[in-house]
């Protein structure tokens, strides 16, 4: 059983948000964008700390559009959580039996079983306080009543989806304490045979006596302390003794600790004496041990843990952060992870990524979905169009949801439009369908993503953390743009700009699509030669209209970068640069260009170094670069 979708309304920075989950889902985004809010919404809806007071919510959790709004009048927080079989028969019988009162069966098409839980937190006039409440929903999201509304169903549902949280600030002192969620419960679950226990206690007693005898001062200390029992005198005499070793079995077991050494010859050291990275990592592996050995004993044989994991990469060096992904993915159950590490993200499949961003409309999440949905009533002929779409379309009658898998092709779109016929809400429906087509045009095929996987691995970690992208052709452009921005006092890092040398990392068109799908503002500067024109054409073919293309893409009017630099009058500087590189070149401009092109990176690096400190030189740099850097400020 996995959480497949969460819909959140009015929670902290979130106004309205729908997020789909896979087995592993990775949230990426700047600080304060709302990543933790998503994790918390999930935890609160699934965590059993639900007394009258002290629920997971507090009144500051209610999202308010502005300061003047009274949270009491707000409709409050609403969190809809959905879990659905990926195919009929996925859920074991025990889950269906135990959750029989709340399971919904889709009989219209998929035959999949699902459960939907709604959690609310709003002002209650009756209670005179903010109150949490919950209800299970039917397939049309109406609250289920009667037996389905009994609280026992909630308790049972939670048992199948136990949620565990590992925050960014992991501390072995806490997480390996005898009261901790994993270690403590592992230790408590240990079964020591009674015989062994009594023998161990006898040995401890003996040891204790020996230790007490070892130094005569111990006896005297005990005698002094026993004054305490005399002062709090009772009728019958008490006693006081010293205990050098654990008194009870649990005292002994609870002192268990992990020790390790890095080399065969190094001394054994406790975990808390190890480096921060090892400590942080060991807690993640502790979770695995907990799930493997006691989770199903404590919960149900069919329970699937949900791990909310913040910043697993904490304190790890890049290589370790990169390999960590593999381990996190292999952890049991469902993993929901936030990260700030480009290294960690490097190996995450594109479709598992969720980009979180704070916008004037609250927190938004972008991803690269494989399908797109819209709400469409059961129009005449719709089912037939769906049936003849060879699986490109699917329709869910109850929720009135039309889903297109991949991009909605023009022909199919026209057929759908025809279904609207003379419907009374025709114009609305046409708008909805058009919107669906537009959204689905952002679809990126698996092939394109695969090519990015191979080409762009080095940089893909970084670009998902960027707020704006500037696409250029190659490395020389990359170096010069960086230097130029520095000279123009626009710090690319500070402003979250990633410069992408698209040619070396796949195709600019794929990056443009990625930017559109993920809602990342972007610009491009290309050569005005065959290659550059081809890049722009391929972007255009991906459904960008002329106006947008004109706004985002520029070319060097005089040809490639070298031709442009020469045309911009940088010939003296270029010649000096080549000379410094011991490249001999004649007076012929053609030869100069030739030499520059064959020492592209080297001359660009040297020129970039000069550009950095030379404002006068920067002002003569290619206009297209300067204009693009200017435009990056406030780009949307």
């Amino acid at each position, binding site marked *: 059983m996995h959480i497949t979708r969460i819909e959140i309304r009015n929670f902290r920075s979130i106004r309205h948000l729908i997020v789909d989950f896979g087995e592993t889902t990775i949230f990426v985004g700047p600080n304060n964008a709302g990543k933790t809010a998503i994790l918390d919404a999930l935890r609160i809806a699934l965590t059993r700390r639900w007394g009258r007071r002290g629920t997971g919510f507090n009144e500051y959790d209610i999202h308010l559009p502005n300061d003047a709004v009274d949270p009491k009048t707000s409709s409050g927080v609403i969190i809809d959580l959905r879990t659905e079989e990926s195919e009929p028969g996925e859920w074991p019988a025990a889950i269906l039996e135990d959750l029989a009162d709340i399971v919904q*069966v889709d009989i219209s098409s998929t035959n999949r079983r699902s459960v939907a839980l709604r959690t609310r937190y709003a002002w209650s006039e009756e209670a005179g306080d903010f109150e949490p409440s919950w209800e299970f929903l039917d397939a049309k999201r109406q609250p289920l009543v009667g037996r389905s509304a009994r609280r026992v169903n909630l308790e049972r549902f939670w048992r199948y989806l136990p949620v565990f949280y590992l925050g960014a600030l992991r501390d072995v002192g806490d997480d390996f304490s005898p009261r901790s969620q994993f270690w403590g419960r592992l230790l408590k679950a240990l079964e020591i045979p009674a015989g062994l226990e009594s023998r161990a206690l006898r040995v401890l007693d003996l040891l204790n006596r020996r230790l007490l005898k070892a130094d005569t001062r111990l006896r005297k200390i005990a005698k002094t302390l026993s004054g305490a029992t005399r002062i709090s005198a009772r009728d019958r005499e008490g006693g006081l003794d010293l205990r050098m070793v654990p008194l009870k079995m649990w005292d002994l077991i609870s002192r268990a600790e992990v020790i390790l050494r890095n080399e065969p010859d190094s001394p054994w050291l406790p975990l808390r004496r190890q480096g921060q990275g090892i400590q942080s990592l060991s807690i993640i592996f502790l979770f695995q041990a907990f799930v493997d050995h006691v989770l199903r004993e404590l919960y149900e044989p069919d329970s699937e843990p949900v791990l909310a994991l913040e910043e697993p990469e904490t304190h790890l060096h890049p290589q370790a952060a990169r390999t960590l992904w593999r381990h996190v993915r292999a952890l049991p159950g469902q993993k929901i992870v936030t990260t700030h590490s480009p290294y960690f993200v490097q190996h995450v499949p594109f479709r598992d990524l969720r980009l979180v961003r704070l916008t004037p409309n609250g927190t938004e999440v972008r991803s690269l979905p494989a399908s797109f949905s819209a709400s469409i009533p059961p129009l005449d002929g719709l089912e037939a169009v769906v049936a003849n779409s060879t699986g490109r379309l699917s329709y869910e009658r109850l929720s009135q949801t039309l889903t297109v898998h991949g991009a909605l092709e023009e022909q199919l779109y026209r057929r759908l439009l025809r279904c609207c016929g003379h419907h009374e809400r025709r114009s609305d429906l046409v708008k909805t369908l058009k919107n669906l087509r537009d959204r689905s045009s952002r679809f990126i095929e698996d092939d394109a993503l695969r090519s990015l996987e191979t080409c762009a691995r080095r940089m893909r970690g970084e670009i998902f953390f960027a707020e704006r992208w500037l696409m250029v052709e190659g490395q020389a452009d990359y170096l010069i743009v960086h230097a130029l921005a520095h000279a123009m006092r626009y710090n690319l890092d500070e402003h979250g700009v990633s410069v992408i040398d698209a040619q070396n990392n796949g195709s600019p068109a794929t990056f443009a699509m990625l930017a559109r799908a993920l809602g990342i503002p972007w610009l491009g500067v290309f050569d005005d030669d065959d290659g550059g024109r081809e890049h722009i054409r391929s972007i255009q073919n991906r459904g960008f209209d002329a106006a947008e293309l004109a706004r985002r893409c520029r070319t060097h009017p005089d040809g490639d970068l070298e031709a442009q630099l020469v045309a911009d009058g940088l010939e003296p500087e270029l010649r000096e640069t080549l000379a410094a590189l011991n490249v001999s070149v004649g007076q012929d401009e053609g030869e100069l260009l030739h030499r520059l092109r064959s020492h592209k990176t080297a001359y660009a690096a040297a020129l970039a170094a000069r550009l950095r400190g030379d404002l006068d030189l920067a002002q003569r740099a290619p206009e297209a670069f300067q204009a693009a850097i200017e435009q990056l400020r406030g780009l949307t």
Partner: protein
Amino acid sequence: MDSALETSLRELTDIQRQAVKWEDGPLLVLAGPGSGKTRVLTCRIARLLESTREQRFRILALTFTNKAAHEMANRVTRFAPGLEGRADINTFHGFCAQVLRQHGVHLGIKPNFAIYSRTSDRQAVLADALRRNPRRFGRNDQHLLPVIDALKARLVGPGQVTPRIARRNGASPHETNRVVRAYRLYEDELHRTNALDFNSLILKAYELFGYPAMAQHYQTVYRYWLVDEFQDTNGAQYTLLRRMAGEDFHQLFAVADDDQTIYEWNGANVHRIRKLVDDFSCRVVQLPTNFRCPPHIVEAANRLVVYNARRAAWKQPAQPSPHAHRGKIERRVFETDEKEMAGIAAEIACLDDVARAQTAILARTRALLESMREALDAAGVSATILIRRDDFASPEMRWLVTCLKQIARPLDQRNMATLVETFGSFAALPLDFNELTSRAAADGVTLMSVWTHTAREAQLPSPAAEVVSAVSSLAAGDTKLSPTVREILGHFENHDPHDDLKDDLCAWRRIEREVRAVNGFASLDRLLQELEMRSKEPVPVPGTVSLATIHGAKGLEFDTVYLIGMAEEILPSWHSLRKQNGSAALEEERRGCFVAITRTKRRLILSRARQYKGWPKQPSRFLEEMGFLNDGSDGPSQ
């Protein structure tokens, strides 16, 4: 020390224990009167639960009355404490309502649907429905309701009505199109008002289980099914059961007594037991020992029932238990029905309270019971007629229910009219319904709020003022359902309630107990659904004599049973005798007599008069069939 279950298991006979522990697929248990079938059912459920403590599957037990379900649930709780949550013990209708609450969304049914069980409600729905097509339908089309009822009871949807089917269900074939149209309008009206009538509960559940995924889901969740009183299953219920079971479900356990089939008029059928055995390839186990009745009565019942020619040959004759009370059968003959009633009333007047509480007077018809009650009244004996009540008897409680309905469905004008009318019968409030609707429309508020406002201003006496105030704060959402209802009942209770109201208050408490036992806390919608499905009769007052029709006595037992009106054209009824001897109707009358006499634990008195309502009547043929020769030896005339 043994648990209650272990003790009970040990006390079973070998054959009972075999049935309880049966694990080999479909089983039919043929269980005569007093054979301990309820004990077998409850022990079986409890044992299944106990032996699978680690598992989560559920057990479905279907009964024919809420009372039987409640009783069975109580016993299961006692036998398998803590595990009763896995046993779903319900009536067919209750179970279907539950399925529809959870999954009805697929058929466009909202979970908080209203249930209409009363004819008057269905008539009103049809009237509203037909008004939508005034050109085609008029006032006189109310006669279509029984036709629609009959079609639905046979699981025939509007699209499936043919002239032949229409004729079989009481319409003339040329009316077919009208029937279909009216049926459609009626269904639309129910849908529009988010309501289901009683037959819809079965019909819609049947539609839902037409989806294999749904049937399969229930087969997974409910691993064992038990059906009590299978002989009373009608065609629709059986068809539903078959569809739910599909081809693959085998853990069906049915308990039946074909000799106690007395609901053929409601679609039950003695051949259905045979069909069950064939359809499910059931093995059959018989429980012939009658632990309830004295040997004389067991023998009389055996002699009687063999006269039924259509009876299955497989049935072993019942045997008395060696531990049964010796008991006796007495006969009485009176000159007239008045003398019969007066004579029996006089006999009962001599009994003490303890004996009266264990005495029942059974009769074929309600009318006979009413005269009997009058005679008992005249003799100063208090008596309770055990009969299903579809509605509360007092205007006070009827008003309370309409208030709750109005809060749940604020736009229901018809209910509001009843609210105004019922309130008017116990408190004077100068407000008519038309005035109310026009004021609500003018102020743009609900009917209920206009009414409560007016009623609160009217300076009503107690308890009307208090109950109005309580209802209005409930309607405003200021107070919670269950304490408010408790408060209102308290006000009625403390103001010298009349007899009907006392009965109703008592009935309400019983219903509340039953609903709570199944559901814990019930929401308003849920409470209304349950109220609609349950009988509103009060719990019998201790020390009173019970009066019951034969149908009403089913499943009960008493130390002393008077069966009155043992005359031709009374039992068997005049209606059944119009057909030839051996007809199905006469056989059903005979089974009725069988049911009646086998209620007896000790003493059975068979009584008749020589004339009823001035018409001379011969002794009932059943007397002779039971072995009492009609040579005047059935006692001196009184």
